[in-house]
């Protein structure tokens, strides 16, 4: 969100620096594609929306005054284009918080309220025993997390992707996805718990 460094980027674009343009496309397109995908019916259309947004940037670059960051500008234009396409396709994704009140860790992992130690762990989380072949840094763990991320419900997947994969902060994510701060936290909480659970299954399987 640094508008000062954006001035340099915008100047470079105006001067026709293709490398700067390519870097921006590579940096922002994944998150743009993910956000666009919530408004339109297919990945193909979402990709068109991302392309149209970059073309709109080129068209509008001389008028860019740096009142907002380049990133904010890009996403605002993206969402406008995506909504226009989405309305045409009659797609909208209401926030789905189904089951959001339920626990993220199975109740049978805990002692009952009648127990001497109520609501304490009955089956506590096990240590994740790592080895050179089986570690958090392995490509296997990475593949596992990626595939679990892909299986999350759409809104959870988006929030986790933007927050934990791409490093956007909560205020930005709320604005991009048009969710409240509280709902954003619920989605993040459930998504992260599922990713942890998948890793736990993987690391506990050997012990």
């Amino acid at each position, binding site marked *: 969100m640094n508008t000062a460094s954006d001035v340099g980027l915008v100047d470079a674009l105006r001067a026709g620096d*293709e490398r700067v*343009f390519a870097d921006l496309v590579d940096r922002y397109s994944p998150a743009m*594609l993910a956000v666009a995908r919530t408004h339109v019916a297919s990945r193909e259309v979402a990709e068109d929306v991302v*392309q149209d947004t970059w073309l709109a940037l080129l068209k509008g670059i001389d008028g860019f005054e740096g009142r907002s960051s380049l990133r904010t500008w890009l996403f605002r234009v993206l969402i406008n284009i995506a909504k226009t396409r989405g309305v045409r396709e009659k797609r909208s994704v209401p926030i789905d918080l189904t089951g959001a009140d339920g626990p993220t860790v199975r109740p049978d992992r805990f002692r009952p309220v009648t127990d001497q130690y109520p609501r304490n762990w009955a089956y506590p989380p096990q240590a994740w025993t790592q080895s050179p072949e089986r570690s958090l840094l392995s490509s296997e763990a*990475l593949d596992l997390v990626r595939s679990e991320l892909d299986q999350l419900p759409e809104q959870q997947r988006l929030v986790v992707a933007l927050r934990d994969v791409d490093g956007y902060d909560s205020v930005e994510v709320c604005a991009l996805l048009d969710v409240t701060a509280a709902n954003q936290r619920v989605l993040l909480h459930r998504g992260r718990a599922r990713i942890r659970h998948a890793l736990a299954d993987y690391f506990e399987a050997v012990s």
Partner: protein
Amino acid sequence: MTGPESMGCQDFVELVTDYLEDRLDAPTRARFDAHLDLCPPCVRYLQQIRDAREVLGRVELDTISAGARDQLLTAFRTWRAGRSGESS
């Protein structure tokens, strides 16, 4: 019940995100911290959530196709050529 026992592990695990987001109110935060001091399994759980975030940080999100990227770079060159034509 008083002290750390007033927060069960089952409550703790549902508060980890609000804790990491710094959204717990002061009394709940104090009980959360007290629970952490006394409960190694919950320390482990919290660390595993952090570990999950670290692995997530290494994931690369799906992006536009190489073909779409090439089209954009071609469009950029055309746009640039049009601009230098204007100024000359």
